[in-house]
């Protein structure tokens, strides 16, 4: 019975969020356009970077950047969903949800399902565009499933991070607090060149940045290798588990404030 309540709440919230997002261009388009725009600017404008001595990525710069943009779109798909949660709290709708839901943890699960659905649409368009501009993929089906699975876990982690912020601060003005740490974590990783070619302070930061193994594993998978995969999945799952505690405590904070 309790499990049924949980999923009932989760699917209802997910349906509402997805309906809102896909019927409101102002909500849907930024999440769709920005990854495409970054992909165009990086893969198109910086392809000469692949001719730097020591840059040995076999599938070309388009595939190299595709993995970064895919993971970035996944993380920001979660962050954009966090904006919606904050908006729900600011306008008082979330308070009514808290009162009506028989299992409140289903609310967070619903937002996470919605973020995954929203990101699935972005990832589909991004993949179509990448293949249309000639991206070369060396990996087989299993490698690609692993790549998209990794991105899905990143999406979940992004949603849990943003929902934890949204439920604690309960205002859309918290948007920069949701965005900036995610943005900086992603850009402190080897975005433009492999880790071995970075130097100075960025190499030191990227070496301990949890986003680095995710990015390296994703790039390895798209070439058909499995380097860094054994590190990336535990890191991603660990992030998701840690952030689920963060989100759950955020929910408790929202309950205390609202009820």
């Amino acid at each position, binding site marked *: 019975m309790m499990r049924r309540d949980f999923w009932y709440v989760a699917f209802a919230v997910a349906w509402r969020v997805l309906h809102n997002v896909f019927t409101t261009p102002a909500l849907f388009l*930024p999440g769709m*356009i*920005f990854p495409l*725009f*970054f992909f*165009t*600017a990086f893969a*198109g*404008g*910086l*392809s*000469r*970077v692949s*001719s*730097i*001595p*020591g*840059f040995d990525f076999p599938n070309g710069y388009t595939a190299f950047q595709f993995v970064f943009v895919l993971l970035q779109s996944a993380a920001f798909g979660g962050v954009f969903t966090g904006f919606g949660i904050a908006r729900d709290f600011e306008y008082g709708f979330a308070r009514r949800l808290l009162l009506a839901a028989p299992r409140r943890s289903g609310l967070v699960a619903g937002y996470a399902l919605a973020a995954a659905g929203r990101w699935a649409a972005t990832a589909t368009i991004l993949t179509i565009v990448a293949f249309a501009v000639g991206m070369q993929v060396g990996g087989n089906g299993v490698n690609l499933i692993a790549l998209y699975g990794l991105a899905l876990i990143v999406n979940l982690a992004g949603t849990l991070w943003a929902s934890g912020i949204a439920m604690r601060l309960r205002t859309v003005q918290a948007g920069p607090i949701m965005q900036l740490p995610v943005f*900086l974590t992603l*850009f*402190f990783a*080897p*975005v*433009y*060149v492999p880790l071995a*070619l*970075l*130097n*100075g*302070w*960025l190499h030191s930061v990227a070496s301990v940045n949890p986003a680095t193994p995710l990015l390296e594993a994703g790039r390895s998978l798209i070439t058909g290798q499995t380097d860094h995969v054994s590190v990336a999945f535990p890191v991603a799952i660990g992030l998701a588990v840690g952030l689920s505690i963060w989100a759950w405590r955020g929910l408790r904070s929202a309950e205390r404030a609202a009820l």
Partner: protein
Amino acid sequence: MTALAQVGYVARRSVLRTARQPANIIFPFVFPTALLAVTSAGLSPATKIPGFPSKSFLAFFLAFPFIQGALFATMNAGTDLARDIQSGFLNRLALTPLRGGALIVGQLGGIAVLAFVQNCYYLTVGLIAGVRLESGIVGGIVLIILATGVAIAFGALGAFFALRTGSGEAVQGLFPLLFVGLFLSSMNLPRNLIEQDWFRTVATFNPISYLIEGLRSLIITGWDGEALVLAFGVAAVLAAAAMILANWALRLRLTRT
């Protein structure tokens, strides 16, 4: 009251209003410098590309925050003007002897002051990080003047959008468009080193490329007459066109009210 005094009052109000909104101050200072740090460190191996014009990617990329800062100034000014329209303040101003031209020039004066402060900050950050201007101290002054001129040009564009639409959200919607324009320019690599033909063509037709290249020339080349003429020319044409459009939009709006 003279037109100059009217301009002064509007400019003072514009500066004070921005200064009282911390978010409008913090983002133009923090965000461009954060992107400067991250991108210049991440792309520093690009200096090994044969034909790359500088040994320091930080020096090469230092022109970026000036343009991005100008975009922020534009958005702030445009949004403030739109708020004046939405709140009815412009209607009340229309009942005073304030001239339409003084309103726009005053608003742009406020942008110029803020842009000047921002530009001094970006240049100081660059110098502290180890960049040496190939054009010397005079080049630094010209750099600040050019970057402030660019901010005024973008500011006039923001004012036009604000007056035409009367909506702060519409002005904010202009930001992604200008940001896309910035990324589809020669911001990250010189145009002759951009490999993809279509991207190089877009960057060549993109006026923002010439603004960036003019600023960049003062940092990494020295005195490049062609780059400077093109940059000042693009900024002047953009500013003149946007001012004419903004004046026209103001006349329409005051007629309506």
